């Protein structure tokens, strides 16, 4: 069953009607409603195109958080072979909000790290809704070290509302863990590529996304704060999230204009959740292209170019 977002109401009506007609036609083939259903399908697809061509920043936030959007695990299953998860921070725990391990990407061994949000109530709770605790960043640091030691590229898949605002996470030093993870990203002498596949939430995202090449799915977001959080602080009203989403410039398109990301990956019509396989395949091609761009760089230049890239960010505003 499709989960419709609030701005997809009229689309839901049309698709519902088309489905009804098809059911009717299956029950009673003489009813001859197939043509009518096909017309409705065309109408729905036109409407979908219009809706998704003109998504507002807030609507993009909703799409990025869509419960049926493919998550890290779906990408790992489809794009990688020999997937061998590696667990634990060797210190306190294994953080289930963060997946990490060895795998092959188009035959070449890599280290994969990503946030996993979960897909039903049980797995969402187990994955803490994709919000890492300090152990998640420390696991990532350990895996990045492993990649560095054996010259393996690092591929990260970013999808998190942000770091976990919990008591234990603070007590165990999540600030330090995030800072060290970002520091590790900037020290690696191997290629590192990141794809924001859903939500790139604040420091929790930066800790995994400080890469040589950063791509975003067309309807994903990457922001210093959630629109709701920003609205409640600056507008003193969490309901002003539409305005905040607008002002924050958190869409893939704005980030590309600002030079913060390198590539926008197209999503299937109606968003990644409408055709997960196609979205995942596009991300795979994006990763391959980005790794290809880095293939000729020496270990030192991989690190130095990554640092230079970040120092240069912000040199132009939106106007440029």
């Amino acid at each position: 069953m499709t989960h419709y977002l609030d701005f997809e109401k009229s689309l839901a009506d049309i698709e519902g009607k088309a489905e009804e007609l098809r059911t009717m036609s299956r029950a009673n083939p003489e009813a001859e409603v197939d043509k009518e259903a096909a017309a409705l399908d065309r109408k729905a697809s036109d409407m979908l195109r219009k809706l998704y061509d003109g998504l507002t920043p807030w609507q993009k936030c909703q799409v990025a958080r869509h419960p049926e959007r493919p998550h890290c695990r779906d990408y790992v299953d489809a794009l990688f072979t020999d997937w061998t998860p590696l667990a634990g921070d060797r210190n306190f725990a294994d953080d289930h909000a963060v997946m990490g391990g060895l795998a092959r990407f188009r035959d070449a061994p890599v280290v994969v790290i990503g946030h996993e949000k979960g897909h039903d109530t049980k797995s969402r709770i187990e994955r803490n809704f994709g919000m890492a605790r300090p152990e998640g960043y420390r696991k990532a640091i350990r895996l990045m070290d492993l990649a560095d030691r054996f010259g393996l590229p690092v591929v990260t898949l970013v999808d998190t509302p942000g770091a976990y605002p919990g008591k234990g996470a603070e007590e165990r030093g999540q600030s330090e863990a995030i800072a060290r993870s970002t520091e590790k990203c900037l020290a690696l002498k191997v290629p590192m590529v990141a794809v924001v596949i859903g939500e790139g939430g604040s420091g929790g995202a930066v800790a995994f996304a400080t890469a040589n090449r950063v791509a975003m799915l067309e309807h994903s977001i990457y922001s210093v704060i959630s629109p709701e959080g920003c609205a409640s602080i600056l507008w003193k009203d969490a309901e002003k999230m539409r305005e905040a989403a607008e002002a924050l410039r958190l869409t893939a398109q704005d980030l590309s204009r600002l030079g913060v990301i390198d590539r926008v990956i197209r999503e299937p019509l109606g968003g990644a959740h409408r055709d997960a396989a196609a979205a995942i395949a596009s991300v795979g091609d994006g990763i391959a292209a980005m790794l290809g761009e880095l293939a000729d760089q020496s270990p030192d230049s991989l690190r130095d170019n990554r640092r230079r890239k970040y120092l240069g960010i912000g040199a132009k505003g939106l106007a440029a």
Partner: protein
Amino acid sequence: MNWITNYVRPRIGSIFARREVPENLWSKCEKCQTMLFHRELAENLNVCTNCGHHMAITPRARFAALFDGGVFTEVAVPEPIADPLQFRDSKKYTDRLKEARRTTDEREAMLVAEGEIGRTPIVAAGQDFSFMAGSMGMYVGNAIIAAAERAVALGRPLVLFSAAGGARMQEGILSLMQMPRTTVAVQMVKEAGLPYIVVLTHPTTGGVTASYAMLGDVQIAEPGALICFAGPRVIEQTIREKLPEEFQRAEYLLDHGMLDRVTHRKELRGELISILRMLLKQSPAVAADLPAPATPEPQGTPADGEAVADKG
């Protein structure tokens, strides 16, 4: 290899700024409610003379007390693009900036200076909580990069005093990008073999804590400072329970292994000198009030508690 060399060229010189403070002003300690004579409070580095509560202090006042003879030279910070996102909430970001400049007499939320402490040459960066809650945007990032570059060019340690409500939301993703940018700056100082000391002051939160403020070779905090990534109110909303008063305070972090030391503001200068000289394998500092160095620091007559910044 120095991959930062051509990026930011520091210049000496900036605008002289001073805050007008009426002589006969009393202020109340927010902790013990004692009325304190302003001059007395300033002489005590804004630490309550009754209960020892550490109140906010501007980088300029801090530097005046920190550097030998109160003399320091400002390190110029490259000006970023103004209002890169054309951000507006209930107010325009440019108006908020103007207002902050007017009330603080400062350009932005971080002051960078070079000078000597106990005859030990250093570069210092101080975050100004009175300027838009010390929030980290492009300017603060540029300031830390400028400080790091200056430290490397002069072969001096970098001492950073943090104070921030977090990221500058009005610069959106560009404020977030200061986390990696400032981390590169810290790496440059460390890779040059120079000490990077962080002094966390009240409050240091959000993306600031999760980047340059947690990456020091030595981490010192002022007593009672709130230091966190997620603030106590956000956590209380998430876990639906009241947090103890001492949660996320400097002493609590010290207990949890996140800090090296918690040090009273009045003892900070001596401690910094001592630590730096050991890390640099220099002889112990002379225990005396040293006059301002004659050269190569610029001349200036340090007035009572006033910062002297050279214009040139």
